[in-house]
């Protein structure tokens, strides 16, 4: 091989001190991030270990995993419900903005959507309690009376409307702007040539979308949905404020007893927690961290796998 020769030739490119300093600063900044993250990880693990291996108070459950399972379930279930509502809507809105709305309006709508993505979650929480829950409560009663045979709507319905369905709607509203904004970018990048080719073949607008826009954006839709999912999984304050939680594992979405989520549970209980409870809560934070990590990894993997044929 040519290993010796290149070393000699490359060595001749001497570096100036300023160059070295600048590169060093940049590298240090990057390494700092690794250190910070390492710090977070070490802290989480160290704090979580006593709860994970040791016994936990009897009232909380038989073991850490017994205790954390309903929370994990609630986290996944609420995020899942939110995604079911948010993804089709977000794709439809993105399509509306990119392909249905007049150009001027579309740009304005784009800004509005971006604005909404930044509304703090406390405000979503306030709104969920003050507006959404009372609005949904009669509907839940009706669902319980008329569709009670469905496992999802087993009565009795909640008297307050602060159910996991309400929380999921809040979550859906929160992630909607994020997914929409990403999908919009992706749809805008559809090669103009493909769209025009479809239209020139006499396709209707919808057929053009199914022929050119959606296939092009498929991986992007999945990736942005997963990013939205990540946000929904980790959302804290809005869920903590809206959801009437009791730590059960139940698929009923209109009842008084709803599974809590990991993040909301931490926010609610950390202030009054002490002793092993702190370790348990941090352990559950670690579980949440692992889930979001998995989800983000999945999204990266999908993007990496599909960009080759997705093209630009």
């Amino acid at each position, binding site marked *: *091989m*040519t290993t010796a*020769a*290149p070393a000699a*030739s*490359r*060595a*001749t*490119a*001497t570096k*100036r001190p300023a160059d070295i300093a600048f590169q060093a600063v940049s590298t240090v900044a990057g390494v700092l991030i690794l250190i910070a993250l390492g710090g977070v990880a070490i802290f989480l693990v160290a704090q979580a270990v006593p709860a994970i291996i040791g016994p936990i108070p009897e009232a909380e459950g038989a073991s850490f995993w017994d205790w954390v399972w309903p929370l994990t379930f609630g986290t996944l279930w609420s995020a899942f419900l939110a995604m079911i509502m948010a993804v089709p809507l977000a794709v439809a809105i993105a399509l509306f903005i990119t392909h249905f709305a007049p150009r001027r309006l579309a740009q304005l709508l784009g800004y509005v959507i971006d604005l909404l993505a930044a509304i703090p979650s406390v405000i979503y929480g306030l709104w969920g309690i003050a507006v959404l829950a009372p609005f949904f409560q009669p509907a839940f009663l009706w669902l319980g009376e008329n569709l009670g045979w469905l496992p999802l709507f087993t009565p009795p319905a909640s008297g307050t409307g602060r159910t996991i369905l309400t929380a999921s709607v809040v979550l859906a509203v929160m992630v909607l702007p994020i997914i929409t904004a990403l999908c919009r970018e992706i749809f805008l990048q559809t090669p103009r040539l493909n769209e025009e080719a479809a239209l020139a073949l006499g396709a209707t607008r919808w057929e053009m979308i199914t022929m050119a826009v959606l296939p092009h954006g498929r991986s992007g839709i999945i990736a942005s949905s997963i990013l939205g999912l990540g946000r929904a999984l980790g959302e804290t304050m809005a869920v903590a404020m809206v959801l009437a939680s009791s730590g059960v594992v139940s698929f009923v979405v209109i009842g008084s007893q709803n599974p809590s989520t990991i993040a909301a549970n931490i926010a609610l209980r950390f202030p009054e927690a002490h002793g092993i409870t702190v370790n348990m809560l941090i352990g559950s934070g670690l579980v949440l961290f692992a889930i979001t990590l998995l989800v983000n990894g999945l999204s990266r993997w999908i993007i990496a796998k599909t960009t080759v044929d997705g093209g630009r």
Partner: protein
Amino acid sequence: MSKRIEINDLDIYYGDFKAVEGVSVDIEPRAVTAFIGPSGCGKSTVLRSLNRMHEVISGAWVDGEVLLDGANLYGPGVDPVNVRRQIGMVFQRPNPFPTMTIRENVLAGVMLNNRRMSKSDQDDLVERSLRGANLWNEVKDRLGVPGSGLSGGQQQRLCIARAIAVSPDVLLMDEPCSALDPISTLAIEDLIEELKTEYTIVIVTHNMQQASRVSDKTAFFNIAGTGKPGKLIEFDETAKIFSNPSVQATEDYVSGRFG
């Protein structure tokens, strides 16, 4: 102001891949040397190795020597930054700095290096360089507007003005007209004709008429096949290359029977 370049047995690699093999050329001062050849034969790579710009691509390195008036560009301890200050370059697509005005673009080489210069010296330099690039009369009233507002041909001349503002000894041009319309191309070719009285000029072009019009000497590069290194096939007076080349491949290429 202009210097001679001697390329001795130059091999250029990208990582383990040998892109160009065994090039040896003597480039005369105050003359235009054209590199021609089919796409992918390594002519641009050779050009970029003349001011160590190829190193910008990670993993690229060379074996051999390039002498600028006898001094090896690849000698130990040579700073590529200093090399580039003496050997200027004009790129395929005009690339004025979008954040800078016309005036700032011309002064970029000076200002970016934090060199101080009085206002009047700057004005002189701007006028001299823009005149040298045949652009002064077109832009003298709007030196404060962004350089990206000019037409393609003007932008390319602005880039040439920018390159000569740092008073290099050699000007490398990498297909400088390929993104331009015929009229702008003509303007650049005229400019090259004027510039060669002061600078050593090396130009890569895929346009053989252009090579025959502007150059004094021509080097023909070719490649045996994909994955093989590019090689210098023939180097001679331009008139000879285009009328009576000594290698069959050159004749095939210049007469259009190739590829």
